[in-house]
């Protein structure tokens, strides 16, 4: 390489939380299973870790260090059980703390700081998605807090997910409420981007809010909120139960609480979101929810643990990816080739990116739907 190793970098990464950095044995399986191989991308986790181990330059670029979508495929395959995402997060944090975050992500972090959401939208407009709908406020007598992902609060396409979900919850008679502008971004992506201090701030604000309102059970619309609430927040003092909307919908459908027509004959493929599947191990409930409305299920070859990432995790949803390098493009093409009329999924990031790629690919006969949307369409 012709570079001088700088071992202090190794120590700094470990101290920043990349505790597994030196457990890596450099087999390179991570690089082989990484979704970037699908599109000849530059990101090679093995090389990134080697550079981190030795303190060599070359990993800091947007395409390498910030290329990781945190899809977890390498982590669940790693023979040494290295928390590769944790190492990557620590390496990013060293860069982010010194002001080196990619420009688009700086805006995201700044907005989270100022507005409590990554979309550079005012805090007061957080409930804009619910216009014209009856959405109860959370009070201590309510069973669940509905925690709507920032994306579904502000992004137009994504708002439909939240609107569909409350329609279903209302019809099923679920006791729930929302907290509106008080809520902050869960901080999952913020942490993965590497801004640990900002994550701590957001998490603390949300935890105080949960505490102040007596929240015991949370429904999330995003698997990203689900993962950070169930994996990260408990270490900061969070005590509650958390469930993803698709899990609740499967329960409601099984209990016969959703008046579904069960006559939707469309061919539906399911795309496992990384944070619900590979991170959370939730594979069957979303499938059960989809099956409840009588669709024809089309299996995609890359499913469950082998699912193909949409490309939106780890902050990538806010970064520019050339069309030919978008995993989501491969995914919609795969679904169309399998004969699916609907590509259903359970994550706002997935919906945004798949919808975008559907348009890029000109697949007019394919619909991208969140499970709530699919079920709401089938309400009798």
């Amino acid at each position, binding site marked *: 390489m012709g570079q001088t190793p700088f071992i202090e970098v190794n120590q700094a990464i470990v101290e920043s939380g990349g505790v597994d950095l030196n457990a890596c044995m450099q087999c390179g*399986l991570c690089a082989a299973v990484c979704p970037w191989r699908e599109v000849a991308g530059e990101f090679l986790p093995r090389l990134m870790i080697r550079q981190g181990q030795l303190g060599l330059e070359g990993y800091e670029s947007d395409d390498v260090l910030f290329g990781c979508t945190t899809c977890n495929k390498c982590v669940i395959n790693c023979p040494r059980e290295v928390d590769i995402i944790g190492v990557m997060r620590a390496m990013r944090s060293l860069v982010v703390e010194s002001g080196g975050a990619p420009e688009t992500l700086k805006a995201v972090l700044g907005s989270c700081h100022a507005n409590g959401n990554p979309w550079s939208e005012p805090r007061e407009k957080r409930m804009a998605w619910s216009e014209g709908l009856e959405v109860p406020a959370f009070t201590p007598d309510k069973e669940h807090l509905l925690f709507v992902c920032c994306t579904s609060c502000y992004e137009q396409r994504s708002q439909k997910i939240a609107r569909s979900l409350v329609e279903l919850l209302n019809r099923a008679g679920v006791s729930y409420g929302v907290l509106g502008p008080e809520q902050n971004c869960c901080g999952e992506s913020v942490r993965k981007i590497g801004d640990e201090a900002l994550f701590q701030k957001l998490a603390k604000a949300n935890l105080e809010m949960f505490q102040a309102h007596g929240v015991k059970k949370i429904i999330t619309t995003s698997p990203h909120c689900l993962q950070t609430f169930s994996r990260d927040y408990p270490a900061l003092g969070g005590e509650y139960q958390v469930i993803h909307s698709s899990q609740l919908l499967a329960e409601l459908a099984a209990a016969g609480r959703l008046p579904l027509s069960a006559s939707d004959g469309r061919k539906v493929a399911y795309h496992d979101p990384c944070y619900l599947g590979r991170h959370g191990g939730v594979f069957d409930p979303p499938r059960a929810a989809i099956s409840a409305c009588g669709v024809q299920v089309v299996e995609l070859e*890359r499913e469950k643990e082998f699912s193909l990432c949409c490309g939106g995790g780890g902050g990538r949803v806010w970064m520019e990816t050339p069309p030919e390098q978008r995993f989501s493009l491969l995914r919609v093409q795969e679904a169309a080739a399998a004969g699916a009329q609907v590509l259903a999924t359970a994550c706002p990031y997935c919906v945004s990116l798949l919808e975008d790629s559907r348009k890029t690919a000109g697949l007019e006969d394919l619909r991208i739907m969140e499970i709530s949307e699919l079920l709401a369409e089938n309400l009798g």
Partner: protein
Amino acid sequence: MNHAPENHYDALVVGGGIAGLQAALDLAEQGFRVAVVEEDASVGGKMIRLSKVFPTLDCASCITTPKMAAAAHHPRISLLTYSRLAGLERAGGGFAARIERKARFVDEDQCIGCRQCEYACPVLLPDADQGGFAARKAIYIPFGNAIPQVALREEENCTFCGKCEKVCPTGAVDLLQQPQEISLTAEAVVLATGFRLMTDYPNRAYGPAARQPNLITSLQMERLLAPHGPYMRVLRPSDGKEPDSVAFIQCAGSRDLNLGVPYCSRVCCMYAIKQAMLLSGALPLADLTVYYLDIRAFGKNYEQFFQNAKAMGVEFVKAKPVVVGSTAEGAVRLRYEDQEGGGGGQEREHDLVVMSLAVLPAAELDPTGLGVGLGADGFLGSVSPKLAPPLTDQEGVFAAGTALGPKDIVDTIVEAGAAASQAAAYLAARRAAGRAAA
């Protein structure tokens, strides 16, 4: 040969692979009477199914069959094949064993191994002893050099047409034969229950991409390379094409905490190198690639063996690849990172890919029911792993070979000898104590 089982033995050896046979022979040569219980229809274990062995490139059949025959013909050894240890209890300072003799549906004493029944049988089934690449009948002699040369019938797929029964010149076929249970006593037990391969690795690691015919296991490659293998030459299973490129994936399950196998399987580096060498003879024009993490060539003459393979043109690529699918022509598609060449992510196709699967403890590692202590790796544990590896935590119970952990044939033979020696010392001490008491 094949003496009828008696009521009492000095030692009971569980497992008739190379470890069990060697331990039995070493005990018998010292004057002890030994019963060998083997679950399979033939003795010989994994070794008799191999092609050639590293680093000498001896023919496995040629050096295993004499051991099998020696055990079969030994006046102080009884081989109980197609039998399993159904229970063992301590009794009178020794052991009382219950052994289930599974129904062969062929009388062992009357069968002369003429194969008339096999020729007459109309049922064709995949032959596991040929890697599933060739067919066998529902009534069959396990393989050419099986010992004993006695037929058995597989009940599940038999159509009960009765042809075998009619054609048998000695009337040995007994379609209504029942399993039998026999009892015997022994003073000492040697566990040589062997290993199995992690055959679910491809599904776990590669998912749907694993479902393709030209992705095979290392033991299947042994059959393709064996002199009396399924095709008598190395051909690709999907279409019978002579492969132009063959790759090996090392550590396929081994040293993988994620799969619960923290240990090295010890034999894979060397057998992959051996198979690559044999392939360079069988397919002189084929490209041979070994994807490895480290090459562990630790035994006598092993490093030279590895260097020879490199000199012969076998390509060694440091990478752990993943199988991602197949081409329209049937080649296996791999992805890996070109670490040493700095070429980044690569995709390559090979006509045939061999997975060097992890060595796992046998399903019936300890059939004694005594609860012999296990090591952290899941294999049988030793109370003195450094100075007396065959000693288990149960008095009078010794262990040898891969039942104690992955090891090659050389180490297995040595350990079997050690187990026999420990068992012999134990038996001799008991006799001396018995005489002193009298």
